[in-house]
């Protein structure tokens, strides 16, 4: 019985954990790309990584928080512009390949020995170097605080303070997405998702709109990265290809092009992942599955989930089937 309760508690914690919020925010960014505009960005982790590097490096070098955020945003803007410049004129699958390549490139740069002084190499940047300014703002007590069954620190690292802030930020960007998707600007993007030539023939500069969507979504992803870093650390290998694919999975799970899809998807994804891992640990004997095997096991299920989603329910949980089925 106790085991069940602790598994439920652990799973329940994922509902509001900062990592969940960070991924929800990243997924909102991807929603601008894919949900609204049909852009195949397979390198979203790169935006997250650039965001966290931009912020953490600025803070480590002594800059204030607002400057850190500006640097994070600028890094995403530049990255998005560089990515989009050659590829937005090409077919969709080219953008997919280039975005993967570019974000792996960022990761390689980040973990390379040559840039170690700047990025911390493969160990990355420790929390102590950049989390302090944010933590200093916390009105919560500087100790462990118990709320219900969850005992979480008030202000440090993955704290109640971070939880409150990150979900407020998520809420703001959900609002932004809602506002923009119901606006004429959003309408143009949806048209582009359907048929670029038709939209061109109506006098709209398709390239400019795609670039705006790419950059805006990228900036939102970068901010997701900053949030994630505050709950963990800046570590290039945690922002690799698998991370991008998880964001895709949770976006499609919740429902691409919907307002709440990213949030719902992120919550479901993390609750399920953690719960499956814990259940596996509890129910499956060590001889059949060791502790280190639980993580890849749960991720196999993630991969299979993504496949099934795309084939059987591409509109996800919240999506409108008529609006989302992309059959040829």
């Amino acid at each position, binding site marked *: 019985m106790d085991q069940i309760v602790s598994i439920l508690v652990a799973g329940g914690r994922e509902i509001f954990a900062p990592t969940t919020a960070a991924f929800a925010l990243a997924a909102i960014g991807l929603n601008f790309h894919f949900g609204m505009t049909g852009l195949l960005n397979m390198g979203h982790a790169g935006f997250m990584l650039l965001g966290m590097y931009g912020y953490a490096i600025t803070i480590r070098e002594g800059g204030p928080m607002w400057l850190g955020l500006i640097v994070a945003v600028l890094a995403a803007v530049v990255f998005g512009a560089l990515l989009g410049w050659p590829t937005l004129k090409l077919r969709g699958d080219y953008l997919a390949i280039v975005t993967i390549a570019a974000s792996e490139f960022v990761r390689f740069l980040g973990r390379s020995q040559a840039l170690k002084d700047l990025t911390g190499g493969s160990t990355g940047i420790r929390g102590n170097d950049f989390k302090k300014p944010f933590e200093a703002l916390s009105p919560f007590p500087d100790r462990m605080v118990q709320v219900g069954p969850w005992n979480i620190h008030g202000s440090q690292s993955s704290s109640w303070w971070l939880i409150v802030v990150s979900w407020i930020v998520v809420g703001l960007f959900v609002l932004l997405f809602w506002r923009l998707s119901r606006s004429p600007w959003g309408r143009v993007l949806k048209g582009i998702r359907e048929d670029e030539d038709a939209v061109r023939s109506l006098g709209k500069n398709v390239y400019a709109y795609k670039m705006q969507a790419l950059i805006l979504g990228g900036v939102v992803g970068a901010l997701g990265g900053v949030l994630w870093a505050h709950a963990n650390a800046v570590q290039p290998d*945690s922002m690799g290809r698998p991370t991008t*694919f998880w964001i895709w999975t949770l976006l*499609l799970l919740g429902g691409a092009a919907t307002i709440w899809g990213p949030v719902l998807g992120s919550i479901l994804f993390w609750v399920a992942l953690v719960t499956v891992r814990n259940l596996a640990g509890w129910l499956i004997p060590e001889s059949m599955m060791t502790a280190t095997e639980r993580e890849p096991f749960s*991720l*196999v299920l993630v991969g299979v989930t993504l496949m099934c989603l795309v084939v059987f329910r591409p509109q996800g949980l919240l999506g409108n089937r008529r609006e989302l089925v992309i059959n040829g």
Partner: protein
Amino acid sequence: MTLNRRIVQRALLVFVLAAIAAMAFSVMLGDGAFAAQSAALELVDNTGDAVETTDPAAPTPAGTNRVLQVLLQGTIFGLLLALASVGLSLIYGTTGLSNFAHAEQVSFGAVLTYFLTTKEPVGLPFVPVEFTIGIPLVPAALIAIAVSAGTGWLQDRFLWSPLRRRRVAVVQQMIVSIGLSLALLNLLQWWVGGRRLRLTTAIDQRWVLGPVQVGQQGLISAGIAIACLLGVSYFLLKTRLGRATRAVSDNPALASASGIKVASIVRLVWILAAGLAGLGGVLLGLYEQGTAFDAGARLLLLMFAAVTLGGLGHPFGALVGSLVIGIVTEMSSLWLPTDLKIATALVILIGVLLVRPQGILGRAERVG
């Protein structure tokens, strides 16, 4: 098909551009850390924990001529990469699918060979018993390749052709391949763990050929790769089935209209692609004196770069592209730190898309 002067010119142009880019890059980074670079390539599993291994493909101060040595290494690597890439290109050409799970086909061949041949105890997911199979390397490899080819058949039979029949869009199929890639990558990690796997414990005898040095396993791998690539080329050029395959890869609608049974060709392509990928994985595992669950995943970008460079859908383009990528990435280690080797390939990839998206052998698409 004759080796056209224009193609050679374009390939040379890419070399030159890549060399310039690599040099500019190294200037940017401040120093061309040479042989001082520690040859440590870290294997990472999903949780982000690093697993230290050594990278035997890094330019060891062997052989008397560094440039030739690296050129040889690049060529061998390029040949092995070609085995994996040709299939990727054919799949794209015949079905329009950018198959992200192709990387796992490569890993699977190598991992299965390890599973069958290693003298160390191995297990299966969920099964609580460990056992040793220990078949000699060659039969193990052959079985693994046959099974790989079989997985290609299975995939097309039960996943891809049903999806095509249901007229699922290529974009959606691509995302399915991403999910498959994620599932297979983790399945392999679950199966054999994150550590480095040796396919043979025999010591790799190094031979000195003039100014260069090469390992016996590397030489054999290259030889097998050349033989297979020649075989594939012969198939594609001289046999009716091969010509039909090229026709479908070039223009599926037209080929179908000419009476070619596209579905059968596609099935054949999947079998061939998966088998070649498996072979590539095994040979790469021999050449690099070790493999791992993510051997293919680490190659995915290089494969895409090679295939895009050569022209998506053109099998010979994949061959040319792989050689270029192999040589350029290895040679970049003359100027750049070794952990940025792959970065060079990425720069080439982006450059190709900028300048000539259809690749070396592709034809410009008609607009409107």
